[in-house]
């Protein structure tokens, strides 16, 4: 009598994806689907797909989905969550979508404390459009728009979104996990489950940044890409929880209306 202990989650459709072999999008898609299943929220989940490699994410999940303009997913999510707070709204965004064109939208959604969950895939490059430099590209890393390597004197240093968003005062859950090592994946899933649980509890904004790989545009095999992410990305993009909604607010901040 064989008991299955690992199989495809219900929230992930049984279709072949267009992602490159070894691309960790497949892992984060599966983790998201597993969490939706485990929390029992598939039937009230609405996902928002980005412009990026995951632009066709709506073909892979078994829940309602919308396609946002580049970078605008947090704004669409705001519109959805504010009009229908019972929905579990999540966005799935890449480096260009979230940290470049969508920088204003993500910061303000986090600052307003929109009770949505943001899945941020950080693979230090623009994948879909063929490997251009991203705000998250590492110094000296080659990309098609910095063919001699990212020059920090010209393009600045990479942006660490989890660090930036954790600096906002509004309570939120901000965490960085990694999916490029087998041992990182269970931790990543725990973070993602916690992030969605905060939304189910109606508590706060949550963002999980996943250090991910892009073997094709990094010009490496999937295994080498996983190793490069460990050696070159993780020392800079530190893993761990940056902020939880239980963190104390700044001293002396008056938040009650007081006497009029």
């Amino acid at each position, binding site marked *: 009598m064989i008991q299955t202990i690992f199989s495809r989650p219900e929230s992930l459709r049984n279709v072949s994806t267009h992602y490159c072999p070894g691309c960790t999008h497949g892992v984060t898609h599966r983790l998201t689907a597993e969490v939706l299943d485990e929390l029992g929220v598939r039937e009230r989940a609405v996902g928002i797909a980005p412009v990026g490699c995951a632009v*066709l994410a709506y073909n892979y999940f*078994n829940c*309602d*989905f919308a*396609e946002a*303009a580049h970078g605008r997913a947090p*704004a669409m999510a705001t519109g959805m969550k504010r*009009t229908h707070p019972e929905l579990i709204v999540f966005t799935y965004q890449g480096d260009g979508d979230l940290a470049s064109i969508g920088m204003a939208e993500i910061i*303000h959604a986090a600052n307003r404390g929109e009770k949505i969950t943001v899945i941020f895939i950080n693979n230090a490059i623009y994948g879909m459009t063929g490997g251009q430099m991203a705000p998250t590209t590492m110094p000296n890393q080659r990309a098609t728009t910095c063919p001699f390597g990212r020059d920090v004197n010209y393009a600045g240093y990479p942006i660490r979104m989890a660090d930036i968003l954790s600096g906002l005062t509004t309570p939120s859950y901000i965490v960085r996990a990694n999916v490029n090592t087998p041992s990182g994946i269970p931790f990543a899933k725990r973070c993602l489950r916690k992030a969605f649980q905060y939304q189910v509890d109606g508590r706060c904004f949550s963002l999980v940044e996943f250090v991910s790989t892009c073997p094709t545009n990094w010009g490496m095999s999937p295994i080498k890409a996983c190793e490069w992410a460990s050696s070159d990305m993780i020392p800079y993009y530190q893993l761990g929880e940056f902020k939880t909604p239980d963190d104390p607010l700044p001293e002396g901040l008056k938040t009650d209306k007081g006497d009029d």
Partner: protein
Amino acid sequence: MARVLMKGNEAIGEAAVRAGCRFFFGYPITPQTEIAEYLAKRFPEVGGYFIQAESEVAAINMIYGAACTGTRVFTSSSSPGISLMSEGMSYIAASEVPVVVVNIVRAGPGLGGILPSQGDYWQATRGMGHGDFRLLVLAPASVQEAADLVMLAFDLADKYTNPVMIIGDGIIGQMMEPVEFREMIDPATLPKKPWALTGAKGRAPNIITSLFLDPIVLEALNQRLLKKYRRMEAEEKRWEEYNVSDGMEVLVFAWGTMSRISKTAIDELKNEGIKVGLFRPITLYPFPYEAAGEAIGRAKKIISVELSTGQMIDDVKLAGCGKDVAFFGRQGGIVPTPEEVKQEFLKLIER
């Protein structure tokens, strides 16, 4: 319902509330900020929700998201902010979800000035964003008409699952006139939309997207949109004819505020025994070409008067099929007096 004296912007906000809209996402910009300010106070009374977005770019995407869930929602802005909404409008039109957008036009181009203008006619009827799509554009000329058209806009947006724009100007937004509102619609009584993203319980997931990489599918979408616009053209043309008669000396084309000024000039000329008529399109898209053409046939001369360097004049020429169309306009936010406009009509008659 009693008649109340209300500012145009506030009347627009109240009309949206009466239409069953309970959500507004917008950004301040003169001369329409009062819409947001009024709703910030009014919405809590009816269980509504107002969010000040971080930019117009965010605002249009917030209403796009809200519209995907099947909720009545609107935003408002003024010319530079409407430009920022172009991308969102194209996405909304391609995804075929209903939204209402209000443009209280200010003088441009660029940052321009805050005084009234009609320089966004081309933007609204032709250039609202990339790709082959149209907005249904309604142009009120009074506070009462603005309130009525806002309520109509929500119904038309739902009927055609297309964005609908109400285009006014600073005068309509800022002036106070008596207005009477229709009965309040309870949003819970509005019909449910089967395509909306409300959670895939007991049904297959719904997907709302504007991405169609397969050219055959994308052409089919464009053809479907075209059919929709043809239906709009057949069923939704609205206009007003004022003092139009056979043998008119001049037929004036004007919309919005300019039509009010023209009417005063026309009345004065009528008292002097000179026959001048006004054709006022209420739907800028679909433009009432046939009715305009008929009216043009009954006049000796045609003039288009606009608060711009001449944008509606293109549509008048299309309607007139080759007949000469004169133009008078002021720009920069300068609004001509009825006397000035009357002199232009007289000059045209002399020519």
